[in-house]
């Protein structure tokens, strides 16, 4: 019996994951946009004694230089969202096009490209990032452009490999044969025929990657290769205050919790979105 797959039709109701994740994400965007209007202090000025615990005046305490951690975290939203979202969007788009086209073209082109990407993927994330920063030279140290480029470079091969897997699965389908015999170009086939089928996978990939981007950027800041102090950036904030982990843990844990919340909300939202958009080529009978 070839039952029609009625259950795959998207429901009118948004999935709960999308609604919860989306709400939190919108909250982050609002904070990033409006923070100068309501921030109680300046993010870079000393306003109290260093390492004070949570209080009504300073909900997240104060940092090593006596700056208000809550204000710094709120301002940090701007730079973290900007960096992680732009870099991940670029990486996912680039990786998707390269991976889908490579899987579709196949042959030696695919072989060479994928072996090269595997070589890149086999290098641990941080070491690769440090290599790129070192290669760029000290004049670019801490620039947002370089950080974006680093994230793109690190993520693109990973996204490409996953997209390629989708394309390879589709390559024998007759609808590609139809497009090919119509005389469509590789670019047109990638964009019109392959990409829609990869959208679910890519959305999930985007959610995971965008969630990890702040960690990567934070790690680099932690090691001193990321955003320059005193720019408020979450990784940098955690790094600066790590000495107080035992005495006033809130100044470290609060920014960490905010970072975690961003990651979770991104994952929930993209997962829900992929589910909502529903249809993929890989159907369950």
């Amino acid at each position: 019996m070839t039952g029609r797959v009625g259950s795959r039709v998207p429901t009118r109701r948004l999935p709960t994951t999308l609604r919860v994740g989306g709400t939190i994400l919108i909250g982050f965007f609002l904070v990033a946009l409006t923070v100068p209007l309501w921030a109680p202090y300046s993010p870079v000025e000393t306003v109290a004694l260093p390492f004070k615990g949570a209080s009504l005046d300073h909900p997240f305490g104060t940092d090593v230089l006596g700056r208000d951690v809550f204000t710094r975290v709120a301002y940090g939203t701007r730079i973290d969202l900007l960096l992680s979202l732009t870099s991940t969007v670029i990486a996912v788009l680039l990786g998707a096009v390269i991976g889908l086209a490579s899987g579709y073209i196949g042959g030696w082109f695919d072989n060479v490209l994928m072996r090269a990407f595997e070589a890149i993927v086999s290098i641990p994330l941080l070491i690769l990032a440090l290599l790129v920063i070192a290669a760029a030279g000290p004049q670019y140290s801490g620039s947002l452009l370089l950080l974006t480029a680093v994230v793109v470079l690190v993520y693109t091969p990973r996204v490409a490999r996953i997209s390629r897997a989708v394309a390879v699965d589709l390559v024998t389908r007759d609808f590609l044969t139809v497009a090919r015999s119509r005389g469509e170009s590789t670019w047109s086939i990638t964009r019109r025929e392959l990409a829609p089928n990869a959208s679910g996978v890519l959305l999930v990939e985007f959610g995971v990657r965008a969630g990890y981007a702040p960690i990567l950027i934070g790690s680099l800041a932690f090691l001193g290769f990321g955003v320059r102090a005193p720019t408020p950036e979450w990784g940098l904030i955690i790094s600066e205050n790590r000495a107080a982990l035992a005495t006033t843990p809130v100044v470290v844990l609060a920014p960490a919790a905010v970072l975690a919340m961003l990651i979770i909300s991104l994952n929930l939202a993209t997962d829900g979105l992929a589910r909502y958009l529903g249809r993929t080529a890989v159907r369950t009978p």
Partner: protein
Amino acid sequence: MSLAEVEALVEVDGLSVDFASREGFASVVRDVSFSLRPGESLGLVGESGCGKTTTALSLLGYRRPNSRIAAGQVRFRGRDVLTLSARELRRIRGRQVALIPQNPATALTPGMRIGNQIEEAMRVHGIGGSRSERADRVHRMLEQVLLPPSARIARKYPHQLSGGQRQRVTIAMALACDPQLLVLDEPTTGLDVTTQAQILELLARLRTELRMAFLYVTHDLGVVAQICDRVGVMYAGQLVEEAPTRELFGNPRHPYTQGLIAAVPSVAAPQRDPVLLRGLLQREKLPQGCLFAPRCDFALTECWIERQSLTTASPDHRVACWRWREVSVPEVAAGRERLDRRPAPVVAEMPLIDVREIECAYEYIRPTRTARRQPLLAVREVSFYLNPRETFALVGESGSGKSTIARAIDGLLTPLAGRILCGGRDITGDVRTRPQQLRREIQMVFQDPDSSLNPRQRVSQIVGRPLEFYFGLKGESRRRRVEQLLDDVRLEPLFAGRYPDELSGGERQRVAIARALAAQPTVMLCDEVLSALDVSVQANVLELLRALQSEHEIAYLFISHDLAVVRSVAHRVGVLYRGELCEVGPVEDVFSSPFHPYTHMLLSAVPEIDITQVLLVVHTDPATSTSASRSACPFAHRCPLKVGRVCDDVEPPWQVRREGHAIRCHIPLEELTERTPQPSGRQTVE
């Protein structure tokens, strides 16, 4: 003691099964009741989605994960299997009731030797004694299903066997524990006609030898006529008619049964006009009354309001129709004579497509480093032509190279030798090297619309893309043209906004045809376009193709394994065997004596709705010989009329019987006429 007094083996009583859907539960099986006596063979027929498989699986106490049994009992030897625990069910399944599934390719574990798979069933049920006794029994099973009972075949893996052999293995597995009831779910659907004839013969023999009862689920009425004592017809989950086979085909009472029988194309009587079943089964719009009312020509007001349950029309014959007395129109079953409505082909000086001695091969992977890179020819010296507005059919079993030829014409595969001309111009070679104009004129429609439609594109995109690509249509004009094309393939404009998975199989194939039409082709390559569809849907699509041919003046290269369909649609036919043509000619010449021995074999293996028909079964498996042992005549190793060494050593000559009809065989035509009579009980058309 009459048959009716024998205690029933299975009694299905008021069975209703629901499937979970978004809006709650939907009925898939509605109040189905029937019984099956020991040793009896009951066929369940109906179109896909009618609930026949769901009903059949309930005999094993199985229901699919998202379904529930809403009501009813399934009593196997008096016990209701639907209430049994998993443990008790395991004791019955395989041991007393066994299943033969549809697709032997997925029914066998790919990583397990077939001997072990057969033995596993015995081991689980603790029969067959010691290890060595079980091994003996496995060999007996293999022998029973006519596989060579050697240790060698028992040690093979499923992928080393042909489709027919695999189905024999699943039969052996089902027989391993001597069950009393076999549930067969379309066991021959994916097989070639000749292989199907072999399996049907095997099943018929096993049934008489082992006295097993069959519940045979199929959509193929010809198969039912061959193997079943009684037939139940299902529609939208309801059993609408049940009668002994002879009675059902001779005297169908329900309008649906009549339509179904009339929709089956026949090799023997091509002049019958299919009385089309109107419309399609629409699950969302079932009336509260008779489920068939929306498609019934006899429906009255009362039919829409009140549902009729099965009532007795004659002692053995039950039917669920208020008006069975009036609707019994014998002519419907017998078929009406009709004028040939095939549009006459244009007689042109130059054929549209001229294929000259092409040879095609797929890339060959060397088995060892030192082996010579030798291509395995899929098509060998094939020549034919296609005139404008003509339908040329290529028939043959799977692996005969039919699709390869279509791919070569479409430019997806470059022939190793030979030329393909289109309107006098050489177009041999890859599609990328062809001019746009040519790519537009040759369009291909594929077998499986599931795979040929992008699941993430709406119908408007699928059909609209060629319009944009070839004609630069955009926006409103493109939208209008899409609607026109949908109208051409008899689909509502609202389909434009749908995704393929919201369409039924027949609707999807129509969309695929609309996409090909969008390019305004002069040639359409139809690669088994009907084989994934139900009979009544097939009849509809076939009618559509005919109409399009006269409206748009399209020539078809029609590839099919279904000889009956070919007979009703083609002007000329080429019969392919293992990549070589063995007979070419106008359809009526090819379908009448003298035949090429292979054509004869194919025609004699097609089961028809005729219970007196005896299928001609040839016990050679096409897969047993490899290309290494190729003889001069490719058919020599299977040919029942093989002359001798000459067939192996000398290329058979083309013997021209009359203008345009040629047979490639060593046997003189007069002798062929004698030795290949018209298949059993069929009148010659001439």
